[in-house]
């Protein structure tokens, strides 16, 4: 088995501004081919990390590698392989979308029929094919879509997006997320955000950054299973109060809540609960209408990890 070089690898990465530590020993590995959500509250250090990865800022210490190349020493070698969309992209207002894409392509040395084909397909992807107005007249959503398109002009091996949906209305968010989702499997996407539902929708792997530290990194499903105590939801035909008392006495149940005929049990031992709950319902002589597992949401994981003392 051949080890692949990760798209991004950060080791003990720090960035300080005076006494403030924006990044404090960040450790992160982004596998090639993943759609990676870089999650964290505002001020956690997400944008600083992206600025270092794109060469816009320098790390105070530590290592930041893209495809195995140290970013600080690489210059154009790394920039030629990445696409980047900052949180608030600045465009030349006097250009049209097509002109901007052609200009962006020319900075990569792309020309001729290759550039023509990419511009055409990216305008189509961004839904801007028939838009002839200048960028200065665009809505925020149109600018973000153009921002994603310009970041793809070089067919990048790694696409880095900084809060691409944070200032968009629901329709604009959906359009940008659809664009990102359509890239899955074609390029590595590293996507910073504080919007949990966006991550759940398009990302397969996530890292959570808090106050300059990566507090966890894992595939989303694994993260939910690892950090969230799982829940079991039970609907019964009667005897709810008795069943709640039965469950509260069990070692495998860490919390029990109920409403009408529905009982929600937070379980510490899923296997034990799966055996004991139907047995307890049968023992009480009531009907079992629904019995299903309910994993915790990413939001609960996030709050559990970073929200404790906020």
């Amino acid at each position, binding site marked *: 088995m051949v080890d692949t070089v990760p798209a991004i690898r950060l080791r003990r990465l720090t960035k300080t501004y005076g006494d403030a530590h924006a990044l404090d020993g960040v450790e992160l590995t982004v596998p090639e081919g993943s759609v990676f959500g870089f999650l964290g509250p505002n001020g956690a250090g997400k944008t600083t990390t992206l*600025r270092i990865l794109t060469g*816009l*800022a320098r790390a105070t210490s530590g290592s930041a590698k893209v495809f195995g190349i140290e970013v600080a020493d690489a210059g154009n070698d790394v920039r030629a392989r990445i696409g980047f969309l900052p949180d*608030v*992209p*600045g465009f030349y207002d*006097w250009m049209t979308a097509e002109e901007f894409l052609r*200009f*962006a392509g020319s*900075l990569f040395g792309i020309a001729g029929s290759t550039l023509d084909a990419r511009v055409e397909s990216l305008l189509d992807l961004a839904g801007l094919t028939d838009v002839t107005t200048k960028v200065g007249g665009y809505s925020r959503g149109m600018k973000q879509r153009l921002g994603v398109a310009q970041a793809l002009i070089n067919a990048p091996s790694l696409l880095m997006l900084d809060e691409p949906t944070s200032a968009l209305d629901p329709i604009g968010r959906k359009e940008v997320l659809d664009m990102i989702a359509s890239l899955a499997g074609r390029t590595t996407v590293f996507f910073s955000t504080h919007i949990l539902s966006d991550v759940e929708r398009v990302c397969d792997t996530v890292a959570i950054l808090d106050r300059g530290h990566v507090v966890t990194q894992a595939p989303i499903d694994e993260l939910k299973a690892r950090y969230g105590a799982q829940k079991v939801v039970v609907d019964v035909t009667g005897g709810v109060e008795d069943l709640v008392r039965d469950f509260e006495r069990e070692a495998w149940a860490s919390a029990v809540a109920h409403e009408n005929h529905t009982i929600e049990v937070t379980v510490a031992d899923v296997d034990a609960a799966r055996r004991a709950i139907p047995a307890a319902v049968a023992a009480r002589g009531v009907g079992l209408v629904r019995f299903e597992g309910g994993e915790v949401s990413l939001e609960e994981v996030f709050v559990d990890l970073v929200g404790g003392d906020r």
Partner: protein
Amino acid sequence: MRGFGAFLGKELREIARTWRIWVLPGIVLFFALSGPPLAKVTPQILESFAGSQPGVIMQLPTPTYVDAYASWVKNLSQMMVFAVIIIFGGLVTSETKSGTAVLVLTKPLSRPAFVLAKFTGALVLLTGSILVGALATWGVTLVTFGEAPVGILARTTGAWLAFGVVLLGVMTLVSAWLSSQAGAAGLGIGVWFVLLMLTIWEPSVHYTPAGLVNAASGVLMGTAPDLAWPLVTGALMVAGCVAGAVAVFSRREL
């Protein structure tokens, strides 16, 4: 220097398609077109004004093309200096403030190429504006006075342009260094003032770029000292400023 050509192309198109094509050339053309007629009628205006004052008698020589050229030089040396400082104070900062620098500098455009393309684009704009202004001055002077020697106007304009390029070099440096256009303009005015002050010290006029500050009027009046050293040190100053701008901007975090 990857990306220089593409980015310079953007700069030139931006000049052609935005307010930039109107402001600097507009100011220059205004002075060029209004200077000769004003030079022609100024003595009449002054004599008329003097005539209305009891006891004041004013006799002025008949104006010539030299007065028109002197008006052109005066406007370049005063108003154009401030126009250059203010307009080019945002040469680099306008791109860092608007976020466009972030978008292009995360592509294979090196920071030296970025700065050099900004300087080159501005140089084209400044030179083109001054040349068009000089041409207009020549034409209107010829029409107004029936005489307009080309050589002296070319040397006069060239002398000021040399100083204008020194100012542009300074503005490139301060604009790459500071994050505020107003701050860059303020510092540019400070540098201009220092150069102006240096003109009262004779050696600096002969050997430093300070000799270019009033060179245009000196050339017109035939009183300018040899400009070889000021031109050489001025060119070195421009090169130093642009190299400094590249160094400062390459270290700057965006």
